């Protein structure tokens, strides 16, 4: 049982203040330290996987494949975008003459590439030529890990080659790689051609 405090007790209680000076010292050291290592710009990686030897450019001697044609192997779309001085050329099935499988997207009036039109055009190619996903394929990589990837009508249904003039700055190539990756529709990201191959301008 606790005793009742004495009525005669008249001593005033002193205000005790917490000594925060050591905490302040710690803060003063920590904040400049963290400021010096802080990264104000966020960085990330853009992965580029060079094509395997077998999947490289089609045999120069063979005739261009017709759309949808299937030889001994699975058919290839061979989608290429070419960044030229005056436009963006889009080619499929190795076509180089204007038509449904070779067309050009002119520059915008301010002289820059029309990335929006390219993105819309690739979405149309994906729907019209590549079509829906047919299933999943898997392959074992050299480290013994299984990798799964979607299968389409064309063996290269997720692949696109980019060619450009030698003096094209890297930023434009990165922008092109970004544009060819996804198409945004109704706030949703739809996959276009995420596997990009960088090739020499021909």
């Amino acid at each position, binding site marked *: 049982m606790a005793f009742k405090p004495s009525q005669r007790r008249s001593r005033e209680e002193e205000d005790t203040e917490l000594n925060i000076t050591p905490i302040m010292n710690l803060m003063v050291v920590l904040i400049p330290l963290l400021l010096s290592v802080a990264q104000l710009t966020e960085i990330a990686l853009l992965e580029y996987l060079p094509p395997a030897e077998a999947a490289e450019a089609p045999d120069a001697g063979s005739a261009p494949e017709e759309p949808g044609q299937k030889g001994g192997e699975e058919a290839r779309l061979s989608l290429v975008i070419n960044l030229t001085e005056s436009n963006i050329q889009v080619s499929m099935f190795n076509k180089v003459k204007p038509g449904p499988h070779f067309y050009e997207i002119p520059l915008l009036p301010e002289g820059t590439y029309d990335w929006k039109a390219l993105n819309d055009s690739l979405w149309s190619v994906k729907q019209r030529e590549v079509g829906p996903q047919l299933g999943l394929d898997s392959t074992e990589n050299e480290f013994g890990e299984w990798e799964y990837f979607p299968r389409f009508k064309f063996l290269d249904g997720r692949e696109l080659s980019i060619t450009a003039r030698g003096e094209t700055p*890297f930023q434009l190539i990165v922008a092109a790689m970004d544009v060819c990756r996804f198409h945004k529709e109704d706030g949703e990201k739809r996959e276009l051609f995420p596997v990009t191959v960088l090739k020499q301008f021909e």
Partner: protein
Amino acid sequence: MAFAPSKGKKNLRKEKGSLTLNSMMDMMTIILLFLLKSMSTSGALIRPSEYVDLPMADREMDPKKAVALLVSAEGVFKDTEGDPQALSLIDELEDPANPVLPGLESFLVERRDLALKVGQAFKGEVTIQCDKSIPYRWLLKVIATCGVTEFGTIDFVIIKKKA
């Protein structure tokens, strides 16, 4: 002539004033928490080099530790945290007879052989900090050189685009 200080004032007992640090403590705590939150462990793996102006892209892949290279307007360098060492300079990059860069090739071969010698799993990964203004023909040569030396996974460091 200055007057003599008042005797009363001289003996006046001064009250001990204390500085109120509470508001400052609040501020410091908020700053500290913000800095701790913005500090990421992945960011510490790769620090953007002061010698290159990185391009911007819409990617999310986190940085990882790999063989690090710098490609600037002066050439290709081995990235050694603030003290880059030249591997291939402009004359090699502009030489049309050379599809691969000899300086870079010997460095990558050395790194590959070292990894195999010490029994590390060689994944063939290389991280490149590439200036956004470098021409495409240089880029193709760097990629070709990485390809012939079995560095098959090339990651370019970019600045994340703000959503």
